[in-house]
């Protein structure tokens, strides 16, 4: 029983990281029809920004304060990087999907090279508050606290995104824009601003995932953003392109499937099963699990 609880909660923790990356990716695709292959770079840059900040903020009195300040810096850097990407690169290419793919793939590769050039290719150990290196007993299972933290953060982000989408004017614009962007403009709305905002939100969520990923794995690694992006894309497609709740549901399914099959079958079987699930969804329900942005 305790093994099942452990696998379930670690799977949910992994799913939480996937969701944080996938939610922004999904909204960006839903509203702008941009396949953003640079989304993993937001994750990576935020993770390294937080790692660097933690080292530089040794003057702060407690590990919690250092970690929390680094978290805020990571989120801000993720949002800023995403905003600059949209403003400087993507905005010129809204009608050219091939151009978007080339530019975002190029940015992802360039970012990876720069990070490896600046920090080396080896993973870097992350300093964590003592609580994050400890475990909490849940139904007899010792659950690493970082998994619980990731689950809590993803749940809060999901709630915040739903509140944003349902109760703000920009949320309304995003929901309408996912359906028919041209008609939103034809109502006199500057949909470009919504594009930038959605990129910033997506970057912030990816940045949060980058910092939480550092805590989850205990290290930051230049290639982790790329690995996350692959599974985030799978989550987005399974959940339904443009759907936040669809992404949340798919992230949970993917995280659990990976953990359980990697443990009970053999390492790697879980990852393979996720790809099979993707193929199954594409064949039977090409629009994904959910319909609509919520």
């Amino acid at each position, binding site marked *: 029983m305790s093994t099942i609880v452990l696998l379930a909660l670690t799977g949910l923790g992994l799913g939480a990281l996937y969701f944080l990356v996938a939610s922004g990716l999904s909204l960006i695709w839903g509203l702008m029809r941009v396949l953003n292959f640079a989304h993993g770079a937001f994750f990576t840059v935020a993770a390294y920004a937080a790692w660097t900040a933690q080292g530089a903020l040794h003057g702060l009195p407690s590990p919690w304060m250092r970690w929390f300040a680094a978290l805020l810096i990571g989120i801000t850097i993720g949002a800023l990087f995403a905003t600059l990407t949209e403003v400087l690169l993507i905005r010129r290419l809204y009608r050219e999907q091939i151009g978007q793919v080339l530019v975002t793939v190029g940015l992802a590769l360039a970012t990876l090279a720069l990070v490896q050039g600046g920090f080396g290719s080896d993973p870097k150990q992350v300093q964590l508050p003592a609580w994050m290196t400890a475990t909490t007993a849940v139904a007899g299972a010792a659950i690493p606290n970082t998994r619980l933290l990731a689950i809590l953060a993803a749940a809060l982000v999901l709630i915040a995104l739903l509140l944003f989408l349902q109760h703000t004017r920009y949320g*309304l614009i995003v929901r309408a824009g996912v359906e028919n962007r*041209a008609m939103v*403009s*034809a*109502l006199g*709305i500057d949909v470009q601003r919504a594009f930038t905002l959605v990129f910033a939100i997506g970057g912030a969520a990816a940045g949060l995932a980058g910092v939480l990923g550092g805590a989850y794995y205990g290290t930051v690694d230049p290639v982790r953003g790329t690995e996350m992006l692959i599974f985030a894309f799978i989550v987005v497609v399974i959940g339904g392109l443009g759907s936040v709740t669809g992404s949340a549901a798919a992230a949970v399914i993917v995280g659990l499937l990976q953990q359980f099959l990697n443990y009970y079958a053999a390492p790697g079987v879980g990852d393979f099963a996720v790809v099979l699930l993707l193929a199954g969804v594409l064949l039977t329900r090409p629009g994904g699990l959910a319909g609509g942005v919520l």
Partner: protein
Amino acid sequence: MSGGRTLLNVRDLNVYIGESHILQNVTLSVREGGITGLLGRNGAGKTTTLRGILGLVERTGSITLDGRELTNLAVHEVVRCGVGYVPEDRDVFSGLTVAENLRLAERPGSPLRYDLVYGLFPELAQRSAQKAGTLSGGQQQMLSLARALLNGDNRILLVDEPTKGLSPLVVKQVAAALLRAAELATILLVEQNLSVAHRLVGDVIVLDQGRIAYTGHVDTLMGDPALARRYLGLAAAGEGHTRT
């Protein structure tokens, strides 16, 4: 066309879609007040003209509203100059409620006319919490019209086939709403239902294969069977479309 101040001026509007030259040097003007009809056979370029005025398709030429150049503005900036748009396929946001569709159409700084739109279309008030995608075609058309009528600072409404596919009862309601709207803003109306068009419009502009083929008064066009047949394909011009 003579008399009245020109509100909308379009000069040498050209639109290419792929290899096709859809609009060829379209030049037209719309006088302030009332309803001007934009007529023509299927594929003549009527919808593209409206979309070209808004900037929803790439175009060249010059478009001015009350002397203000719109050509280089983004779509939302054209709309904010006071151009309302009712698209051919209604294009309501199906996942949003009726109230959300209307709220989305609100423009900051514009006087909002909820009393007017709910007065014209009481069904919308009754169904304000209903998803627009679950409305009937007629109700969706009412919502589409209501979005354009909501903002009190709209100077001109570009209305594309508002009666398409509607029951006669709803057509009457939509026609009445257009007449009421014409008291508040100028309307450029694309309409395939010629009896409705004849009843509503004064000036007409006829497009044929992407070019302006005729401009004049609707009675002159409909009263001349040869003209009507030539430009509108109307076999019994002047017989079934008397103004009521």
